[in-house]
């Protein structure tokens, strides 16, 4: 790679300090020092990133501006434009969102005997689940227990996680691994069947199972294959844009929009599961993101309009290692596994400044501090700052070829731009990664609206204020399965009355009443990265 001079020089320094650093272990921060670091540098604690909601079930609670803007917008739909009396589909269980949580829910609901439809915004599997590289947590090893997993999750989440949800996750995690094994997921194991496992940030045992560095892809493509084999109906390019209620205030399905034709379709459903994933594409705080194209918080918006409560939306997860160079891949994730297998974080002067496997919020804050308070970052040609993730150290310690074997997706990613991460370190900066909070659910994935369920990244509480790597893939499977099962069972005894969209008018009135004037409509559906051509604009 032809680096700019300042970057090249810094790489040389990093190389020089490598042999010495290989022997050096940076100390863990004390609990007090951690808190101080977070308070000063984590975006969640900055006054200007959050504001209190003016309306709705979580009125008064703080959420990022970008989320508040969407929640305080108007519907895309004019109820007068659609006829709710002749639904296009009638089904027991409607699943909104075709990622890991949605696919798992569909398989379980169908196995339980329910009729199922998945509707999704892009293609089945165009989802954050497909992008997860690092791994999935489950206490399957002899030296590990669900209890230790529980303790780690609480520590990671700031001790604010919902205990019932955590308990369910840690207990079902091994069952999910066994389910995945029976579906034919290819996890890394040795010839005796022992899973390869590594640490993730904040784990006390090596509990991270992986499928090379395509863990999410391997899970997602297997579930997708199974959904197709079981002939479950999937409607693609058809995002839900509003939920429907019936006269008793029960959830009763959704209105879909055909993205290619702009037409609406009405699905009447006995039970509805929201599994629309996260919100990375809102670029909270102006950060780049690691998320897929459709991660636009649609589920939060639709659910909020029918009266659902949101929790922990004040806590946003920034992944410490997003690409900062080259420009073409800024924001893309550099998997935590790179640190898991031994890479250190190093500043422009070739010094370590934080233990690489502190929890994500702490590491991110440490990097922001190193770049903007201690001014020891490396500046890229676009003015962005970053620090080094010293990937060559992995081969230095474990032998040549380790990087190639453990991190093929990462190697390929950088090879495309002429960078060999086994020889050159990776420039990184925190990227917007995960929506810690979301829709409040109970262990059956029920929301407070009857017959409306939520599972996966759209829900909140399981991870408290901060999710640990590997617990999200597990969360979407544990709770996706749970939601599918619970919704299918519930659907058997339900009668749905005439459908309505009255909540939309009521919500708009509420907005008017508190004086919110807005021209914005939501859900967003897709971010717009095209310049405003009519006005001759260009890309930022």
């Amino acid at each position, binding site marked *: 790679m032809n680096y700019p001079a300042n970057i090249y020089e810094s790489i040389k320094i990093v190389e020089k300090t490598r042999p010495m650093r290989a022997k050096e272990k940076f100390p863990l921060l004390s609990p007090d020092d951690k808190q101080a670091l977070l308070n000063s540098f984590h975006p969640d604690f900055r006054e200007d990133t959050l504001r209190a909601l003016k309306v709705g079930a979580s009125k008064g609670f703080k959420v990022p501006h970008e989320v508040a803007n969407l929640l305080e917008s108007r519907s895309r739909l004019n109820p007068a434009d659609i006829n709710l009396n002749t639904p296009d589909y009638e089904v027991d269980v409607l699943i909104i969102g075709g990622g890991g949580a949605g696919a798992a829910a569909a398989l379980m609901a169908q196995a339980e005997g329910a009729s199922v439809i998945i509707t999704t915004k892009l293609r089945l599997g165009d989802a954050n689940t497909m992008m997860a590289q690092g791994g999935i947590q489950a206490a399957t090893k002899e030296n590990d227990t669900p209890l230790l997993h529980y303790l780690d999750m609480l520590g990671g989440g700031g001790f604010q996680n919902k205990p019932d949800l955590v308990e369910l996750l840690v207990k079902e995690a091994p069952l999910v691994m066994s389910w995945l094994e029976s579906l*034919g997921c290819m996890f890394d194991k040795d010839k005796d*069947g022992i899973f390869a496992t590594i640490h993730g940030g904040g784990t006390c045992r090596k509990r991270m199972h992986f499928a090379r560095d395509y863990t*999410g892809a391997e899970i997602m493509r297997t579930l997708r294959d199974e959904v197709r084999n079981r002939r479950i109906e999937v409607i693609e390019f058809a995002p839900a844009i509003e939920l429907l209620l019936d006269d008793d205030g029960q959830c009763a399905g959704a209105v879909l929009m055909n993205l290619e034709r702009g037409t609406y379709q009405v699905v009447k459903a006995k039970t509805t599961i929201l599994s629309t994933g996260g919100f990375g594409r809102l670029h909270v705080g102006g950060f780049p993101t690691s998320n897929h194209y459709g991660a636009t918080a649609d589920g939060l918006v639709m659910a909020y309009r029918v009266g659902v409560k949101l929790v922990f939306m004040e806590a946003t997860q920034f992944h410490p290692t997003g690409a900062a160079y080259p420009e073409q891949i800024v924001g893309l994730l550099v998997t935590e596994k790179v640190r898991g297998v031994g890479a250190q974080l190093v500043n422009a002067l070739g010094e370590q400044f934080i233990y690489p496997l502190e929890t994500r919020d702490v590491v991110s804050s440490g990097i922001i501090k190193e770049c903007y308070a201690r001014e020891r970052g490396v500046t890229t040609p676009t003015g962005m700052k970053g620090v080094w993730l010293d990937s060559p150290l992995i081969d230095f310690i474990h032998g040549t070829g380790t990087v190639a074997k453990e991190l093929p997706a990462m190697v390929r990613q950088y090879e*495309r731009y002429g960078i060999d991460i086994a020889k050159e370190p990776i420039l990184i900066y925190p990227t917007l990664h995960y929506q810690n909070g979301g829709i409040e659910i109970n262990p059956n994935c029920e929301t407070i609206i009857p017959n409306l369920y939520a599972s996966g990244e759209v829900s909140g509480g399981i991870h408290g204020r901060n999710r640990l790597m590997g617990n999200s893939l597990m969360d979407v499977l544990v709770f996706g399965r749970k939601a599918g099962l619970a919704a299918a069972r519930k659907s058997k005894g339900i009668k749905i009355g005439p459908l309505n969209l009255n909540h939309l008018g009521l919500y708009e009135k509420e907005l008017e009443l508190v004086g919110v004037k807005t021209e914005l409509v939501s859900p967003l559906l897709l971010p717009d*990265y095209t310049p405003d051509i009519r006005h001759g604009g260009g890309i930022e």
Partner: protein
Amino acid sequence: MRQRMITIYIMGKPYEIPDGLTVMKAMEYTGHKFVRGCGCRGGFCGACGTVYRLPGDYKLKVGLACQMVAEEGMYLTMIPFYPANKALYDIEKVKPTLSGLVQLYPELSRCLGCRTCDKVCPQNLKVMDTMAAAMRGDIAKVANLSFDCIMCGLCASRCPAEIVQYYVSILCRRLYGKYIASKSFHLERRVAGISSGEYDAELLEMKVKDISEIKSLYNSRVIE
């Protein structure tokens, strides 16, 4: 500093774009808002397979729009969808053998050994060798060689034998994961323990402890 501009041709139409953008960002720069052809934006989902030529070269090249940088004179189109034949099967009943494969994908035997699939794979996989392994019933080898496949469909779009390489491959990976790789005995033991309620009491106890006690347990836990 003014950015250098280059010209690319999107489905035959010329557009001026700043040098250095990925094809995906270049298309957005020129006002194309994606509905199809864009999923993960990170090289994992296979939504954005793109075919192109460069000036003065008859050769067709391929890449992922979200990953490759637009070049001067690039003449391109995306192939966001390709009609492909996927066999439907019950994974509990398929045999992990050559006859199991051939029953579901009889077209396998039509492979001409032309290597077109190798040339178009944006993941640089050895697709032909993978299909050759499938024809020998070497399921483990197919599973291994194809592991990094993102199912973009470019190989199938060019295959003269109309084989759908990525569906053959995922079938083999699932068969490998389910029937050939050794079962994890430590997982089986843990599942049995959970099913018999072995961990229930200690979890219940932990759940009701107050936060300060949980905190000190957390802070003093041993990291192995």
